[in-house]
């Protein structure tokens, strides 16, 4: 079920520059929900750096992160780990079982009680 989401996709969405990380650990130190996380913020950055994106998508830390952005505020190298977590969350949401409509099915579905807008959003939503 896992599509091969690549590291670049994660970086493209997050816009975080993970090469700057000097592994100081201040992000994890500042993270209020660090206790509950299985992959801690500083590990998030190294996972992303190694390209182990799928592991990130499955970890539950994604849902522990409160988006308080303390890690972004305190990171001395401006790496923005929270955006990385946000990007991973988005990728998970966007999979949603990939049940969006295939373009050539649309003609068949056209009838006047199905609002056009629904088909278009179904067609478009959850794609990139």
């Amino acid at each position, binding site marked *: 079920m896992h599509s091969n989401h690549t590291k670049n996709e994660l970086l493209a969405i997050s816009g975080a520059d993970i090469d700057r990380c000097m592994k100081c650990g*201040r992000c994890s130190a500042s993270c209020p929900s660090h206790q509950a996380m299985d992959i801690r913020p500083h590990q998030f950055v190294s996972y992303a750096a190694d390209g182990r994106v799928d592991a990130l998508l499955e970890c539950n830390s994604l849902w522990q992160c409160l988006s308080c952005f303390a890690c972004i505020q*305190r990171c001395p*190298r401006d790496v923005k780990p929270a955006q990385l977590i946000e990007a991973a969350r988005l990728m998970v949401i966007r999979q949603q079982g990939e049940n969006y409509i295939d373009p050539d099915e649309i003609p068949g579905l056209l009838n006047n009680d199905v609002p056009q807008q629904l088909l278009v959003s179904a067609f478009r939503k959850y794609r990139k």
Partner: protein
Amino acid sequence: MEKIGVFVCHCGSNIKGNVDTAAVVEQISHVDGVAMAVEYPYMCAEAGQAMIRNAITEHGLTGVVVAACSPRMHEATFRKAAERAGLNSYMVEIANIREQCSWVHRDTVSATKKAVALARAAVAKVHRNTPLHPGESSVTKRALVVGGGIAGIQAALDIAEAGFEVTIVETTPSIGGKMAQLDKTFPTLDCSACILTPKMVDAAGHDNIAIHTYSEIEKVEGFVGNFTVSIRKKARSVDMDKCTGCGDCWAKCPVKRVPSEFDSGLCNRTAIYTPFAQAVPNVPVIDRTNCVKFKTGRCGLCRTVCQPGAIDFDQQDEIITENFGAVVLATGYDTISLDKFGEYAYHDSPDVLTALEFERMTNAAGPTDGRIVRMSDGHKPKSITFIQCVGSRDITNRGKTYCSKICCMYTAKQAILIKDKYPDVDVQVFYIDVRTPGKNFDEFYRRAAEEYGVKYIKGQVGKVVNVGDTLHIQAVDMLEGRHMDIQTDMIILATAIQPSATAKTTAGMFSSSVDQNHFMTEAHPKLRPVESHTAGVFLAGCGQGPKDIPETVAQASAAAAKVIGLLVKDKLMTNPCTAATDEDLCNNCGLCGNVCPYGAITYESKLTASVNNALCQGCGACVVTCPSGAMDLHGFTNRQLMAEVDAICK
């Protein structure tokens, strides 16, 4: 007939890699005036220089063009080589086909075409070169040292020992600088005062050294060999000749609550004070902003108790102007402000100290006589935590992008000092990586960890909260991936250091520049670390970049050696590329005199401008201001530059 030799360098593959040097040689040989053109892998090597010398004698060359690296690298080398073969060194021009051609253009065809154009421009310039002979200017056999820290003192002592007069200008009331505040020094744990105060006394006692404390540089004019510097001696309100340093005055002074700068604010001082006991000169200063006499006109107790009558409230600032041949800038460092680092609760809790403040605490002469206590309740702390890289290695605008270099070592030292005094106190250090780049440095750090049991935790502190009487730390141990919520009694921050506030203005006055962090820019980071871009101005100590005491002293002695090398000369060779006027064309209109930054142009009776070669530095402002072209600049004449433009555009 012009006979110019063109030497095209391969610079190994640096040039040959992107520029077809054979084609350059072939095309440049057709340019009129070029007698011979040849290529060689390493022109700057001895063999290359020999090739130039032989070519000059063999072909009777009247000019040489070396198409190689930047003139800022080897122009001097090739000019010396030509000089040794009897060709005037200013008949040599450099075409920069490495930094400004092969290294920045990948397409070989167009890079080669550009290299030919640059070589052609150099040939066109050599065509119109005239032999130039450096002039001479006098050397004032005196040196100025700006900054009275260990760097300034060491430089001054070395220069004075060589027999030259030195003047030290220090802004604080006493020399000694930051080192005077330290307790012990790494890696040998020498007592800082024990190794510093003798040097201070030597400096004070040395008859070649004049010390101006509580003074600053007001104005600088002139150039290498002839700096004219005005020094403002701020009014101490104490007559230095009469004062014996007995201390009756600061004992009686009613003002007690002024935070002492020397003790980093851990304790207070009086309005009339000397920074520390071993101050040199041991003469107090009245802090006019806090002194009751100056604020309200009442009091004057210090004057009444002073037997020798040294107190003089009417003393005014005094400006003294002196000439110097060379200058050493040793302006030192300050710690950065921690206002933007709220997460460490530095301003919330008195138990969170910077390393410099802690240094005062452990110092026997310090405010707590060496006892390590919590500033909040005076109790002995049971656990002390060090936090490294506070404000260093930070590319956000909160801190400094660079590593401050000395914190890892002084943290290990301070940890050892604590464990040595109170073995039962547990000490832990949160670090990113411990940097110990020096002789016996790493062994010293391992002694702290192994012998004294200092806990080193690879991780960082996220947040410090001042809860009641303890400090809660939220941190992480990266190696174990363990979150830590711990309490500690005292926190010491390894704060980043930056150049002292006066660095930028002082550098500006000596027309040498500073980098974006306001550290003074050295002439070349590897080859000329203690020289500034301005001839005759040398750098030493933390003003040039973060460094520890051994390096500072090494730089101070290096700078001193450079100064001595300069002052030993009776005459200095001046830059021959100075302006000169053509008496037939000059009609004495005076425009050039207005724009000369050095006042080098005078208009004697013969009603034309005349340039003083000793003062002129060859900037060319006057040449462009002169409408008729009467004023011209040797080495960069109007016709030369026009010819260069013609050749480069072909």
